[in-house]
């Protein structure tokens, strides 16, 4: 049984409970009173980017629209500006809930595969945990070559003037491609993260079994 079917089995007809138990800060969703201040405060909501702004997603969760929520590109439009958090009259940690739903959709393999911010988010985490510190050059290159080699060269060309400006100002180092900044104790960083994933997975699985 795949992870997805296992959770579907456990939380049949109760998507809200699934979100509460499996998503970071998911137990806050039921507190939403549908005022819409979050949607009105969201910078990307004004660019016809969102399929569903936060308060709509929260109602869809309560209505059990599992497929629509988890496959949506909406959560991935979050810029982490925290405007929704500070304005929410019910004090919901909306930014974290959005990140949490996104992470859950990604974990289940239901998130839109080529959504650029989903891709970048995964790339960023891999980049910074690989050596313990971000390698800005490899991060940018990884993003440009997301849609293959030819598109990568095109993207690189489009960004050429921006990159050159940074290189001239000594704020982008081409040598980062061969190594770059890192933690001395990379082994420790990896071991600690491995353990953290193990514990977190254990806790989530226990809830499905329980």
């Amino acid at each position, binding site marked *: 049984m795949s992870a997805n079917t296992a959770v579907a089995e456990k939380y049949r007809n109760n998507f809200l409970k699934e979100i509460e138990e499996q998503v*970071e800060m998911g137990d806050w969703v039921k507190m939403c009173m549908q005022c819409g201040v979050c949607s009105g405060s969201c910078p990307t909501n004004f660019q016809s980017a969102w399929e569903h702004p936060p308060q709509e997603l929260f109602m869809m969760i309560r209505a059990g629209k599992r497929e629509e929520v988890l496959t949506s590109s909406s959560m991935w439009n979050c810029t982490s*500006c*925290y405007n929704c*958090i500070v304005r929410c009259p019910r004090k919901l940690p909306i930014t974290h809930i959005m990140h949490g739903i*996104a992470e859950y959709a990604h974990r289940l393999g239901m998130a839109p595969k080529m959504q650029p911010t989903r891709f970048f988010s995964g790339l960023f985490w891999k980049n910074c945990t690989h050596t313990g510190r971000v390698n800005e050059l490899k991060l940018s290159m990884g993003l440009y070559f997301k849609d293959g080699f030819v598109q990568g060269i095109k993207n690189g060309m489009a960004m050429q003037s921006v990159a050159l400006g940074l290189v001239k100002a000594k*704020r982008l180092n081409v*040598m980062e491609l061969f190594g770059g900044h890192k933690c001395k104790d990379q082994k420790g960083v990896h071991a*600690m993260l491995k353990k*953290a994933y193990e514990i977190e997975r254990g806790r989530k699985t226990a809830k499905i079994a329980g």
Partner: protein
Amino acid sequence: MAKHEYAFYPGCSSQKGASASNYLTSVESMCKTLDVKLTEIPDWNCCGASIGYAEAGELPRHVMNARNFALSEKNLPGQEIVATCAACWLGARETRERLTHSDTLMADTREALKEAGLTINEMPGIRHMVEVLIEDLGFEEMAKHVVRPLEGVKIAGYVGCQTNRPFGVAGESFENPVYLDKMVEMVGAESIPEYEQKVTCCGGALAFSEPEKAQAQIKDIVESAYDHGAEMIVTPCPLCQANVEIYQGQINKRYGTKFDIPVMYYSQLMVVAYGGSAKDAALNGQVIKARRLEEIAAKPVKR
């Protein structure tokens, strides 16, 4: 002994050859004048930033920040951690808050840290450099060192998001924080309190992944600065600085604008006002040159 000492968490973007290396140079010069001693946390790691969320999960993200806390406690016991980057500060503060509020999360974190041979006994204080300046030193102390006021320079104070929300600087409002305007006036320049884009989001990581969305936001931020007669923009955040500065050329192509406005760090303004050279203020790190500041930095100092 220095007047103020802190454990320093510079963050990835501040490293040599990285996008905010000019920020670090100017902070070092500024701290020298103000007698603030920053000792780098040995072998610190990335905070995970907000954008790592797809794969970070909850515990791994907090463990990353907790490793820095543990290293700080071990090597620099009793010192508060100071970050210059908004995202580093926010990430570390969030971890501090979550671990303080959840015994389970704290126990899990300790178990994971053990794998790296580390532990946490005490939660460190987490401060942003602007908090140190405002709260520990104060405007009066900061102003004392001004020997070359930036007279007649009009500067838009762009606070951005993560230095302002969800934690912010104590006593400031989320919608209209005024400390940056006060810092602009402190260095003898002219602030623009009515600059209505001061807490608008620059698009954050979307500037990389979905540039058209971020650039629409950056356009508003820059346009309003021009509308208010600003000669330059100042910010306390490395990502705000980079996003608002380096994409102006692309925005000009996209929207037919003629943007060419320098975007500075508060620390750069302070270093020039404190009598430092262009090099001390890392003015050579600007993609859009701050000519007016370069001219002022070349002037003799009034002692």
